[in-house]
């Protein structure tokens, strides 16, 4: 007998393959076996081999299950499906469902075979087609084949009918518009007796209600009665061995009917009233000693909570939950917690009664239960119980699993922030959390803490002292170190001198060098990251100004880091060293306390960014249907540090032009920015680089400080002065030495002579100046343009740019046409604010564009002959 003719009797080669795969010692060996097999299957496919098609399919499915690509076998499935016999079709459909999913184009090719099989005379072949369609159909297929499925829904065979009903669910999920086509036959089938049909049809009805309002209304009218009857029949039925589970007849049917009742009763008083009695009966009569009974009770409670149930029924439901919660079975407790969350919306008080039990569940050994309970506690917290509950949670933080700390920390932080009106309490809780789980505190949380401390001047002393103490004990908690180091840098003297003592506090004895020790220790810890170290360096720099006696020691520490392999730290150390060493004159103003951080703008920004994250998450969820993997895994990254704020400084350099000329070409911008470059011989300080360095000086990688409006001149401007010329090498720093540290202030009322700022063959520009008394930095300039040629200049436009430390406002020109031969002139006024008045002279670059006889002309120049003292 030739075995090869019969696809069923061979199989040895398949066994060989499996044996070879199992015998593989290494992954690469296994891959080799699979590769060899796949090559053989490919060859068989391309030869159009019929006899082994069946067996190859089986192999492919096995290979697929191991996770190897099998797309080349997809067409084989289609061929098997198109074959006439049941065995071929059976394995073909199985392969189709296993190897393909709805997103593959190949699937469309099967539509025709499916249509034929749906009309087949053999009920099992119809069943195979329905099953495949129900499991993997796409929207297009759903549309194409819906009429067939609709017809089968009225079939006489109950097995076909139930499959058609489930298949319709898939179709309606893919194409909700089709819902109304199915509602008539769905309602009709509620009268069936066959449990399989009932289960399927009831599920179909639930799906139809979700898909279409019209279907919901229709089914409310036509099937509530039928549902009550079904439920009454199954609850009252005598022992039915076929459907019996733990003494209950068909709990699956129970649950599905209850679910549909929930959908129908939601927001519909009549319907709710109609099902009231039967729900009460289910809730009271169902045995709760087995899982099946509890599953029914769980569903029943949920239905009662969702519909317009009577208060008596609700009490009954809440009681069932109370019983669940005290159950010793973890599964039951889990669902009870789950359900109590939903019950919060209905009856908060009833849930509050179980607070103690719920709090115990937060400490459960099972992470699923802990998570649920924590969510619930979070919902339960209100003004009256926030303090004791937070205390419980914080206490638990100390002993909880490492895995759970992240969730727990996030929730505690969120609670504490929500109730942060009592600032002292907020600070205390935050310090505890930072000490116990500082490594799990998200950036935005400790940023917010710093903003709050910065705003609460009466609590700064207390904060810095508490943090100093915490730092001694919990130096390994990253975010604690950051906050503590920042506070010590800013408010160091408050630790040493016990300033702003609160009544509850014990005075501490900390010397100046102790404070430096603490920061140094943090800097030198083996494990800390770059941001923390950078913050330590800034804190040290600040302390060198707060505590002059320690300055030398601090310089030593800073110098040690000059050779650091991390560029960021190395650069900082070099810059800081230079500040300590050579720029005593500006040091104290440079290192003044940070201006108070703007709480409102920080909160707004944070809300906006978290909202953005939320909406992102949301859109990801909605855009991809259930089951897709696009949902972020719960880790919401804090927003990137809002650098743009500081970068905005850069915009000072953008040429200020009249409204008509705002679209200056980029290269022109660069030209104007060239002012900076010409000043610096190294030419390394491109504008963007200077901004970076500026940021460094202000302090710090990712830091909330950047949120604060950087407007306080005594802090920012020296920084800028440094950064303008400081691309990292000390040599360049020397340029600073050339700064006129004190220019004699001019008399405010001095009149400044007019100047001829620019003159060319065609054009003369004169500037006259005026100053407001009491505002030495501000100058109003009147610019007048004179045409020296005999031709009128049209489209006349004047643009100006100034270095960063100057602010410029340009008003519109009096005209855009400059008459010929000096017959009249165009005037324009500018106002200029020199933020470094008395230190640096004004400088300006200008560009003038115009047309002569319709031809574009461009002139530019630099004005450096401004009178001294502007």
């Amino acid at each position, binding site marked *: 007998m030739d075995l090869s003719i019969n696809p069923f009797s061979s199989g040895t080669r398949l066994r060989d393959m499996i044996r070879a795969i199992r015998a593989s010692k290494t992954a690469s060996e296994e891959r080799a076996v699979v590769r060899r097999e796949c090559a053989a299957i490919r060859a068989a496919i391309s030869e159009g081999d019929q006899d082994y098609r069946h067996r190859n399919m089986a192999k492919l499915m096995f290979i697929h299950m191991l996770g190897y690509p099998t797309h080349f076998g997809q067409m084989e499935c289609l061929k098997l499906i198109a074959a006439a016999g049941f065995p071929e079709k059976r394995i073909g459909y199985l392969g189709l*469902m296993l190897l393909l999913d709805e997103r593959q184009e190949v699937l469309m090719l099967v539509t025709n075979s499916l249509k034929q099989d749906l009309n087949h005379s053999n009920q099992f072949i119809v069943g195979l087609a329905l099953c495949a369609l129900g499991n993997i159909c796409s929207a297009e297929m759903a549309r194409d084949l819906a009429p067939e499925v609709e017809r089968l829904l009225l079939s006489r065979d109950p097995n076909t009918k139930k499959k058609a009903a489930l298949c319709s669910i898939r179709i309606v999920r893919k194409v909700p518009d089709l819902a109304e086509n199915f509602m008539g036959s769905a309602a009709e089938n509620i009268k069936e007796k066959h449990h399989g049909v009932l289960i399927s049809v009831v599920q179909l009805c639930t799906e139809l209600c979700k898909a279409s309002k019209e279907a919901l209304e229709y089914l409310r009218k036509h099937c509530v009665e039928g549902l009550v009857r079904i439920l009454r029949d199954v609850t009252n039925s005598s022992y039915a061995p*076929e459907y019996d589970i733990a003494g209950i007849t068909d709990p*699956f049917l129970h649950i599905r009917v209850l679910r549909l009742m929930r959908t129908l009763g939601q927001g519909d008083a009549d319907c709710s009233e109609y099902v009231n009695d039967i729900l009460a009966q289910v809730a009271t009569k169902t045995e709760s000693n087995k899982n099946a009974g509890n599953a029914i009770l769980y569903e029943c409670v949920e239905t009662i909570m969702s519909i317009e149930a009577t208060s008596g029924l609700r009490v009954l439901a809440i009681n069932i939950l109370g019983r669940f919660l005290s159950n010793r079975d973890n599964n039951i407790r889990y669902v009870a917690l789950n359900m109590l969350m939903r019950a919060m919306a209905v009856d908060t008080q009833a849930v509050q009664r179980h607070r103690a039990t719920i709090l115990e569940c937060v400490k459960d*050994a099972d992470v699923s239960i802990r998570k649920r309970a924590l969510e619930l506690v979070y919902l339960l917290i209100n003004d009256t119980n926030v303090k004791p509950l937070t205390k419980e949670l914080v206490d638990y933080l100390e002993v909880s699993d490492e895995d759970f700390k992240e969730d727990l920390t996030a929730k505690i932080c969120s609670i504490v922030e929500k109730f942060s009106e009592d600032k002292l309490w907020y600070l205390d809780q935050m310090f505890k959390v930072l000490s116990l789980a500082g490594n799990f505190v998200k950036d935005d949380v400790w940023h917010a803490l710093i903003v709050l401390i910065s705003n609460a001047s009466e609590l700064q002393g207390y904060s810095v002292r508490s943090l100093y103490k915490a730092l001694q004990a919990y130096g390994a908690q990253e975010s604690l170190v950051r906050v503590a180091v920042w506070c010590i840098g800013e408010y160091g003297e408050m630790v040493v001198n016990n300033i702003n003592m609160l009544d509850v506090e014990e005075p501490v004895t900390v010397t100046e060098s102790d404070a430096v020790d603490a920061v140094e220790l943090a800097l030198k810890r083996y494990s800390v990251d770059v941001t923390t170290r950078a913050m330590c360096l800034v804190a040290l720099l600040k302390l060198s100004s707060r505590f002059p006696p320690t300055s030398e020691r601090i310089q030593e520490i800073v110098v040690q880091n000059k050779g650091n392999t991390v560029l960021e730290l190395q650069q900082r150390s070099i810059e800081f060293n230079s500040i300590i060493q050579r720029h005593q004159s500006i040091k104290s103003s440079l290192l003044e306390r940070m201006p108070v951080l703007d709480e409102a703008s920080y909160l707004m920004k944070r809300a906006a960014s978290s909202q953005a994250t939320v909406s992102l998450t949301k859109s990801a969820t909605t855009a991809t249907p259930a089951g897709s993997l696009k949902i972020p895994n719960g880790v919401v990254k804090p927003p990137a540090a809002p650098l743009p704020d500081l970068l905005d400084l850069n915009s000072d350099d953008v040429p200020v032009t009249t409204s008509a000329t705002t679209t200056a070409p980029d290269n022109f911008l660069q030209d104007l920015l060239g002012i900076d470059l010409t000043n610096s011989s190294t030419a390394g300080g491109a504008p963007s680089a200077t901004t970076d360095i500026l940021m460094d000086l202000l302090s710090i990688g990712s830091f909330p400080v950047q949120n604060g409006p950087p407007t306080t001149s005594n802090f920012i401007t020296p920084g800028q002065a440094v950064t303008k010329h400081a691309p990292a090498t000390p040599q360049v720093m020397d340029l600073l030495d050339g700064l006129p540290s004190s220019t004699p202030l001019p008399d405010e009322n001095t009149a400044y002579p007019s100047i001829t700022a620019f003159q060319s063959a065609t054009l003369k520009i004169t500037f006259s100046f005026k100053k407001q008394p009491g505002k030495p930095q501000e100058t109003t300039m009147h610019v007048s343009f004179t045409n020296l040629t005999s031709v009128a200049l049209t489209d006349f436009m004047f643009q100006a740019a100034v270095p960063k430390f100057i602010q410029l406002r340009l008003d519109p020109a009096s005209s855009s046409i400059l008459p010929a031969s000096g017959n009249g002139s165009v005037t324009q006024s500018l106002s200029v604010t020199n933020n470094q008045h008395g230190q640096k002279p004004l400088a300006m670059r200008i560009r003038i564009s115009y047309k002569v006889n319709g031809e574009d002309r461009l002139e530019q120049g630099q004005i450096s002959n401004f009178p001294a003292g502007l």
Partner: protein
Amino acid sequence: MINFVLLISRQGKVRLTKWYSPYTQKERTKVIRELSGLILTRGPKLCNFVEWRGYKVVYRRYASLYFCMCIDADDNELEVLEIIHHFVEILDRYFGSVCELDLIFNFHKCPWPNFQAYYVLDEILIAGELQESSKKNVARLIAAQDSLVEAAKEEASSISNIIAQATK
């Protein structure tokens, strides 16, 4: 709705997968890896539910096999436990003892790769929803289809016998 069904051995070997929501091959591999890590490490007394990416995975262990079903957040977890048990009982009835189940899925010991488990599942779930609550009915339907296959097999072999005899 059940998004997928997974059967994993205690060693993390996949015995059966069935996807009712679209997942690419890459995602499938990732899901299996993630869930094996989550579920196989859980202690015996803990609850049978794991929260995962906004879904819930209900699992139950039989001998050395873990049956896992991933459901939406608002589905009834307790009922899914019953569905798993329902499936297991039907398999049990079909194959013999539950304790030997892992052997059934162990292709090595099996003469023919056992797609029967898939056929059984297809009689219990369609579109991620329950199809039949009667074990008897499922068994009857599977048996009827198996006998159709048997009949085709016999027919094929009798034809080959006839051919063999005729060409002797």
